[in-house]
């Protein structure tokens, strides 16, 4: 096995180029998902650690939006100076594993691992995040919903690196929120979670982006609900969160919770997230 720690993007991409099948290269950042997934098996391939690549880490304002570098950790997110629309992402950042995991694990790694229970994905979908993929062949961008294609499946080609996530321009008053349901207070894999970004006008919802995680193979935006919420004040908004508007979800029963509970709980979790945001209680 070899462990590569390139310091330039060119070197990193060169290491991936043309080696897609013969000798697989695994791209890692914090490795907090990758290493536990290996189990007992000895690893004979090549590990490409992207955390030392120049420019890969950190959050910055780019044009009218924001760029989250591919090696940006969850702790970096927590400590970044970001507008209230990111409060949901920050609340999620506090719930990814433990502090130690948050110090090592990255936002990009969270989406590449593509777990249905990934805490980062609902807030990122609600922020309309886009994924920048870079290879020696060039650079392309996918919206996050197209990037994650299934349970532990992504559109990333073997020679590509997720070099950044982009958050497009946000309305001035946009506010984010996040609610996680778990069997204990901390260090727990989600039973279900909700990420949302709202813009408000005179106490009423102007735009809504609501995402539910862990209740379908890939976290989903609730389009019907988002449309229905426009124009609602808090009381009306809570009433409009109905199971019918969440029909796209397909929760399963597993060791953490039953499908029935997930179905009922996400209704309440959305209501709580809306309340949290509309009452100004979400503080990342």
């Amino acid at each position, binding site marked *: 096995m070899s462990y590569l720690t390139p310091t330039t993007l060119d070197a990193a991409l060169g290491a991936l180029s043309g080696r897609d099948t013969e000798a697989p290269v695994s791209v890692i950042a914090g490795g907090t998902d990758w290493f536990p997934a290996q189990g*007992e098996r*000895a690893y004979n391939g090549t590990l490409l650690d992207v955390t030392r690549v120049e420019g890969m880490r950190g959050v910055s304002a780019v044009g009218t939006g924001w760029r989250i570098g591919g090696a940006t950790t969850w702790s970096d997110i927590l400590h970044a100076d970001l507008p209230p629309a990111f409060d949901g992402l920050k609340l999620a950042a506090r719930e990814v594993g433990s502090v130690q995991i948050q110090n090592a694990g990255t936002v990009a790694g969270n989406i590449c691992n593509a777990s249905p229970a990934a805490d980062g994905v609902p807030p990122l979908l609600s922020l309309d995040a886009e994924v920048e993929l870079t290879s020696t062949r060039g650079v392309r961008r996918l919206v996050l919903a197209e990037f994650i294609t299934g349970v532990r499946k992504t559109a990333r080609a073997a020679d590509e690196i997720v070099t950044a996530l982009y958050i497009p321009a946000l309305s001035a008053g946009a506010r984010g929120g996040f609610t996680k*349901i778990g*069997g*204990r207070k*901390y260090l*727990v894999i989600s039973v279900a979670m909700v990420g949302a970004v709202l813009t408000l006008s005179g106490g009423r919802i102007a735009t809504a982006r609501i995402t539910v995680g862990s209740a379908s193979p890939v976290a989903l935006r609730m389009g019907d609900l988002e449309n229905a919420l426009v124009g609602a004040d808090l009381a009306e908004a809570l009433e409009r969160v109905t199971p019918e508007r969440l029909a796209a979800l397909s929760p399963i029963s597993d*060791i953490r919770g039953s499908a029935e509970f997930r179905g009922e709980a996400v209704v309440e979790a959305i209501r709580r997230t809306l309340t949290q945001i509309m009452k100004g209680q979400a503080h990342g």
Partner: protein
Amino acid sequence: MSDILALAPRFGSNSGQSLTRRDGVAKVTGTATFAADNHPDGLLYAVYVPATIARGTVTHLDVAAAKAHPGVVEVITPENRPPLAGDPDSKPFMFAFRFEALQNNTVRYANQPIALVLAETFEAATEGARLLNPLYDAQQPRMGLDGDAPFTPESGGLGLPGTTVHGDIDAGHAASAQDIDVTYETPEQYHNAMETHAVVAQWNGDHVTLDIPSQAIVMQRGAFGYYFGIPPENVTIRSPYLGGGFGSKAIINGPQILAILAARMTGRPVKLMLSRDQMFGPSGHRGATRQRLRIGIDTDHRMTVLDHNSLATTSTFDTFVESAANASQGLYAAGALRSAHQGVRIDAGTPGPVRAPGEAPGSAALECAMDEMAYKAGIDPLEFRLKNYAETEPGTGKPYSSKALRDCYAQGAARFGWAGRPLAPRQMTDENGMLVGWGMGTALFAAPMFAAQARAVLRPDGTGLVETAASDMGQGAWTALAQIAADSLGLPMDRIEFRSGTSDLPDAGIAGGSAHTATAGGALHAAGTDAIRRLAELATGDPDSPLYGAGNAGVIARDGRLHARDDDTRSESFADIITRAGGAEVEGKGSASRTAEASAAHAMYSHGAVFAEVKVDPDLFQIRVTRLVGAFAAGRIINPKLTESQLMGGMIWGISFALHEEARFDQRTGRIMNADLAGYHIPVNADVSGLEVITVHEDDPHVNPLGIKGVGEIGITGTVGAIGNAIWHATGTRVRHFPIRIPDLLTGA
């Protein structure tokens, strides 16, 4: 008065100082040497191959592939496994359990060893184990409490609970004005000590040295000697530190035996340490239980009958039936009492003692049933328990050696603020709209003793040496036992050396049964007292001593000097006495155990009362324990800080039992689906808040000379039921299984 313990003629609680653990610095700085920290020259690493089926046979192992891997030295399978002198399928001594040591190719549960790979590095051994790539002839495993027909275990020792009946059960049922008939279930639980099972084995001829975490250091010499055909004195066990044991490290397991065998086979030292997932198999666990409780009361709310029946899972090849129903003995003054047990054989490893064996699940069910009965009767659950307070042991009529349970109830209730609790459920909410519930349970655990010996030496320089092979599992034995020893010698803590944790020292008995402090401490105290007696003989018989003629009974030891009891100005230092007598060390020996007569004369238990507050989200049903107050009476408390830690640890385990812990078996394969600490939940720090421990004063003149009961296990009992009852009180939903999880509350919404 000593500054170590307040040695009044009769001891109250909290009589000792809250000294900080003597092993604390070593542990936080990493210098404490646990078994697997030993790396003798020439060490081979052993990794065992766990079965991935639960029932069937191994049909093929690719030994050639494993042996071809660089660094792999040997592969042991049933084909080439050297003989053992003792049969792993025999039960030759107390605490002997049958285990798998490659005696054949049968698989009896998932994760049992089916091969052992030895290599120059841990990595090579791990890869060699993977390359064995076993093939199986698998059969459908029998799983769960309905997996086979129940059987009635023979009654006898640990894990063989029989049926105990006091009074006329039928008459008790017939006499009841009101009754309940409820059934509770508890799941399989695995101890999961922080330090997984490990051994470093080194042979020298027919002598073996084992670095191994052990809760029974001297006793296990004989056990290992039996399997390897050598006398006990040819086995040296070193176990200075244990990262928890909880009962599992008093029992020998197959992987350890195989590692020791491999060391003899290869002529090299061998190290084996179980991975976390391997802890879910060969090293014991708590069996699942299904407990039916029938309680009847008369019109005055006095119990006419307490009828407790428990079914528990055990393995197909050995019998350890959780003695859950015995939790109903010894506590409430029911007119008639029955505790009955049955077992069911499933394709899992053999259960064994897990912290508060029997009492933990038994108390959980009993205390919830008591709560149900009280509600049905329309009285406060604490009042109901007081109404049925036993002044003597129910059934036997034996007097208690001491019983400050009334004080526990009173102090716990006062501290918690129990008064004014509404009887009906779903009456209280907090400022955030959370449902609030209060529940309580009685805690009870027997106060047994094992047998122990100790040695105490006074040296010419005035310092002392004390020896007994105690086990510090993290509970603080190194500290509490040293406090007792120092006091018995009349020396400050920094002038005694305490040797412990190796098998060449006097037997300290088993660190189990919540009896270690009482047993090993009793022996140390007796040894110290004996040494002082001999020293006093030297002084009082020597005309040159200021104590000449003072007489043995007239001398007391304090701070390194002997003083005449009736004249404090007459005194002489230990060093002067010994030096003038020629400089030979003065040795004392002592032992401790409980006589049959003492056991017959009194019922001996620690008691307690636990009060819980939970908050339940009315929509998401998330459950949080927000306050937990436990008041315990356990005789004399040697070190209040360590004692409170032990009780807190037990209560936190109670939270774990009530809300989190459960091994989930895949019914098709028999494998445990959550065999790691990511999936096998215990509370995290954030789940534990508002936890308070009160130690209630209790003098016990009968339990043993030092008046010590135990605190290691009682904290779990009472707590589980208190939390279950609080959840009911918050929600109105009575969940009759543990752990209680979010979806369990859905139906009551």
